[in-house]
């Protein structure tokens, strides 16, 4: 098996996602998320080089500017504002979580083998890998399930979104530009709203542990 350059970057994004689940420092989580998204943007740019359609270049730029830089900086600002820098306890011990993530990469590898072939084989090799997309979705889910703070939930959600994006890029060569930009806007607004809600949670409960939000208060 040979690895193309864009597959290399796509798998690199998964590796940084695995690293992300290996620390409870929220700012390190954010930094690793930013690197992961940057690599997703690089995959899009590599796809532009292969297909020579300029919309992918713009998409790569928007992904890097909005998701890698913008959202990470916004969440870092939220963290500074509410003065929470680490995830308390996690449901799964950190080393085990990392190894489960590797297992998920393996599962994604076997799942990706069973997928129907994408329309254009020659472009497919340049479009990153469906395997990385599935793995990112699984890792994001695990991240959301095992972490307790609200900001971790947002980061896990964003990782899942990266995975879906990479998967569509690999299997269907991305969605139409308008749909893609609409999703980006949705994600941006969603993160903004979630950030504001995090403020409110911190203000009324004095913690952002989502597991303790089940009980109603007067």
């Amino acid at each position: 098996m040979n690895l193309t350059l864009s597959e290399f970057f796509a798998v690199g994004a998964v590796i940084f996602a695995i690293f992300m689940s290996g620390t409870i420092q929220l700012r390190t989580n954010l930094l690793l998320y930013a690197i992961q998204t940057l690599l997703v943007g690089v995959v899009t740019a590599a796809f532009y080089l292969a297909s020579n359609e300029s919309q992918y270049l713009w998409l790569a730029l928007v992904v890097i500017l909005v998701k890698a830089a913008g959202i990470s900086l916004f969440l870092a600002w939220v963290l500074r504002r509410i003065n929470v820098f680490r995830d308390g306890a996690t449901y799964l011990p950190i080393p085990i979580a990392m190894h489960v993530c590797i297992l998920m990469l393996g599962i994604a590898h076997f799942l990706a083998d069973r997928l129907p072939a994408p329309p254009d084989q020659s472009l497919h090799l340049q479009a990153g890998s469906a395997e990385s997309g599935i793995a990112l979705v699984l890792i994001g889910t695990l991240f959301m399930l095992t972490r307790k703070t609200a900001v971790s939930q947002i980061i896990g959600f964003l990782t899942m979104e990266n995975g879906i994006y990479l998967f569509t890029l690999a299997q269907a060569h991305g969605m139409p530009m308008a749909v893609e930009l609409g999703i980006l806007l949705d994600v941006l607004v969603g993160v903004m709203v979630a950030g504001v809600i995090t403020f409110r949670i911190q203000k009324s409960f004095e913690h952002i542990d989502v597991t303790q939000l089940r009980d109603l208060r007067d």
Partner: protein
Amino acid sequence: MTMLISIAVFALSLSLLPFLILGVISSLKARWQNRRGASVLQPFRYIKKLYSKQDLSSKEASWISDLAPPMILASALLMAIFTPWLSFSPLVQGSDLFLVVYLFGLSRFFTILAALDSGSPLTGFGASREATLSILTEPALVLSLLSLAITAGSTDLNKVFAFSQTAAGGVLDVAIWSLAAATIFLTALIDLSRMPVDDPTTHLELTMIHESMVIEFGGRRMAMILVAYALRMVTLLGLASQCAIHALIAIPALQIAPMATIHILSIIGILAGAVAIALVETFFVKLKWTRVPEFIAYAVTLSLLGCGAALLGGGI
């Protein structure tokens, strides 16, 4: 004739580099912490001083305390000879992956034994921690070397580090070699008790690992342990830099063909490893003991990924 020259150069670097590396790390650290620091040659002087000092041992100590330091030194020296940590290392017959790993374990075993033998509670404390660490780190080292062995199709380290396999395919090769380089560097940090795991400059504190094990030794035996430590450091850093160089030459665009460049790069790589250690020790603090397994998990994860990549590469 060229064989003789290469052996001579290897012997020269084996006798100079380990101490030079220790000196470089401590003087760089001092410089970055706004101290003047000792000269790069300080480790030579220190070891000379230790050799001329009187050797005392505790009343509880048995013959194991006398046996352990030579054994630690011997296994470290054998490891340095068997491992191709420089591109111009002479090809020693039988430099097998598992031999190297077990030599590594042997020197650690005797360190722990010596620590337990001296009968001081502090050394026992350090020994227990070292044993825990070694259990956690050994998979990382073994798996990362195994992933290289899978691509080379042999556990003979001379064949693994032979600068001949570009057949496995560019990008995947780069990935495997760079994962191995990162793993071995992290393993070196853990194994040599450097900063994120253990603070080599603390003495007489309950937090330390390696320094507390050898605290009962002085004089000639301490010198032996220090030389062994320097040898292990240079071997591990050398292995990591060899992996990094292999990753570099696997990049198709970079044609670093001549061996002379590679020979120079392999020494520069070791020095770069020393600079990286000094950087880590300047900017990071020691982790809490309960957080150390999380740090080690990174090394194990990297090595597992490397193994997966090697298996995907169809090396078997």
